[in-house]
């Protein structure tokens, strides 16, 4: 395995997993077929397919974007006036941020999504993460975060942390939280990088 997940050690660096380690490795053998081989080959470029929102992706593959959206839908609140993850641009922001970080971080997080998509079978679910119902997705995430396997804890926690960061930083969530916005409510001043991403993904800057 060439890639690692979310700033994580390679499997060979992890000791003492016993059965859990072997089950994870077996499950990962399934991953390449679903993410266009990128996980197994160590490549990091996105495929040409657009994201679930129909716009080009710069960092994620379409499959990884679907997994990320599934995580986001499982994690964010659905009551209390909170917007959906799609309305808060979570997947889109994830792709944007990932397109601007160091290759090692980008590769790790992309690989983490690949692991996450195919991990549910380890927890007794028949189906990929993005195909599970919401309660099953939440259960898988919770099990990962509490896992005795360091790698799985890290994947579950890091993907969730980033999803929640991008979601609650979005202005559309603020009314439901009671946050009164940045001091003075100034409009965002987009920098070169945000404009560059927008130009390359067909969005208006």
């Amino acid at each position: 395995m060439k890639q690692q997940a979310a700033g994580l050690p390679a499997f060979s660096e992890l000791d003492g997993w016993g059965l859990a380690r072997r089950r994870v490795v077996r499950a990962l053998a399934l991953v390449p077929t679903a993410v266009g081989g990128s996980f197994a080959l160590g490549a990091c470029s996105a495929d040409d397919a657009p994201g679930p929102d129909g716009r080009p992706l710069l960092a994620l593959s379409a499959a990884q974007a679907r997994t990320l959206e599934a995580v986001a839908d499982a994690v964010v609140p659905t009551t209390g006036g909170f917007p959906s993850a799609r309305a808060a641009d979570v997947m889109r922001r994830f792709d944007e941020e990932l397109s601007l970080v160091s290759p090692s971080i980008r590769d790790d997080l992309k690989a983490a999504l690949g692991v996450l998509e195919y991990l549910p079978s380890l927890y007794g679910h028949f189906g990929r993460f993005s195909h599970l119902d919401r309660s099953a997705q939440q259960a898988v995430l919770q099990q990962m975060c509490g896992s005795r396997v360091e790698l799985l804890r890290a994947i579950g926690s890091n993907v969730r942390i980033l999803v929640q960061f991008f979601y609650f930083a979005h202005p559309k969530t603020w009314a439901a939280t009671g946050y009164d916005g940045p001091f003075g409510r100034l409009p965002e001043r987009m920098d070169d990088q945000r404009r560059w991403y927008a130009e390359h993904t067909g969005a208006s800057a």
Partner: protein
Amino acid sequence: MSAQKPGRIYQWKDLTQAQTIRAEVCVIGSGCGGATMARQLAMAGHDVIVLERGGYYPESTFDQSELGMNGKLSADRSMRASADGGTLLLSGNNVGGASVHYWADSYRTPEDRLQLWADRYAVSGHDAAALAPAWDEITTTLNVHPATEEYHNRMNQLLRSGAEQLGWEGKPVPQARKGCVKSGHCMQGCMYRAKQSQLVTHIPQAVAHGARVYADVEARELVWEGGKVKALQARVVHRPSNRASDIALTIEAKAFALAAGGYYSAPFLMRQEGLQSRLPMLGKQFGMNPTAMVHGLYDEDIVLWRNIPAAFGVEHFRLAKFDDAGAYVEGGYLLMANQIQPGLLGSMMPVMGDELGQWMAQLPRIGGTIAWIDDPADELGELTLAKDGTPKVHYPYGPLTQAILRDTIKKQAQLQFAVGARKLLVAGADALQLNSTADIGKIDQLPIRAGGLFMAAPHPSGGCVMGRDARDSVTDSSHRVHGFDNLFVADSSVFPTPVSVDPSFTIMAFSYVAAEHVRQQLG
């Protein structure tokens, strides 16, 4: 275009062709260490250039957007984690470095820490007497003063009240501020020029004395003969894509000072062919002040996101205490009020779905505390290189570190219940919720492990530690890299251990000392 006029800040748009840039001193990095070094040397009349990998974002580009400013100011957009994936690594990547998003806490190095460095690691010339003149001057330059009453938001008032009730020593935290408007956006960069970061102090002072600053320039390869560095090869970074371009710069200087910060200075030297074997301590003795935080729900509005972050600090537990048999008793951290905007707070909530919504719907009433762990000297970590040459942090979270983390979570719970918290949520994957003081015992069962607690590490140290010779360190007490005449390190990577308080004031004072040694080298 040639970009060599003194007293200017250049960016990628100005650096459109390969060229050779000459100066007396080349400083790599523009944070507290590099900017202070540049200011000292420029004011002494030397021809100085500063290279910064990140962008130049003056206050006119600030907007207080949590995500937008994170992208402008933070290295790898705060998405780099330790090798075990358990700790987010925070550092600056812009002209001014981490000081542009720091909390402005400005502690002088505790004397016990300076003594430890002298006694155990043979650091000389950096005792309190040697550093005092620097601190005295920086206190004026950066307007450092204890936070006054009006800058204590509700959470800081509660922290102070709790400390008083429990008999814990604490006091207002010295702050580098001038005319603060209490926006609460220290971590997004202060657009009011109130926080006295390097961007509004030492950088403009250096430029006013002729220094040239090159933003969007990535230092790559040192060229040396014998013990003398002759040049540095660098590349211009295409700022919009954040990727290095093929525009090469050659820097020729009489002296080079590495100040890329605690996460990046050691990796820079590791990438130089042959240096790791000559300097086996490169990357070693790495600390990072991991943080542990506890969220609290109160009956009153707390509004964590306004006013200054750390007006009051509990110093009672700064040093770990041990019994006569050497067993750990308590302490080993600074305890502060937390202050984070909603994105970061939401990200540190260990619940999901509608339970997450129930917590976040009460955002104004959420308070919290945070502790900076004083990494135990015998359980420090190591920096290595990832495949792309970026830093990879290995941090052991040893038994004493775990005990310290458990103790601070307990103390944070104790304090918050004492001042009226209705329920608490430990920021960690186990989502431990405490409903009263009777629940504090549950913390004894909490697994303390990598990826278990949600932690960030904003204060790296070590990796190029100071000491006697190449067997125990990377630099000597003149900040000079062992085996080199004109290569210096001037940032937190020379600290043999973490400082036990916010390191910025220590970094700046050490740079005063380093600048003096560079001046002597220049003759």
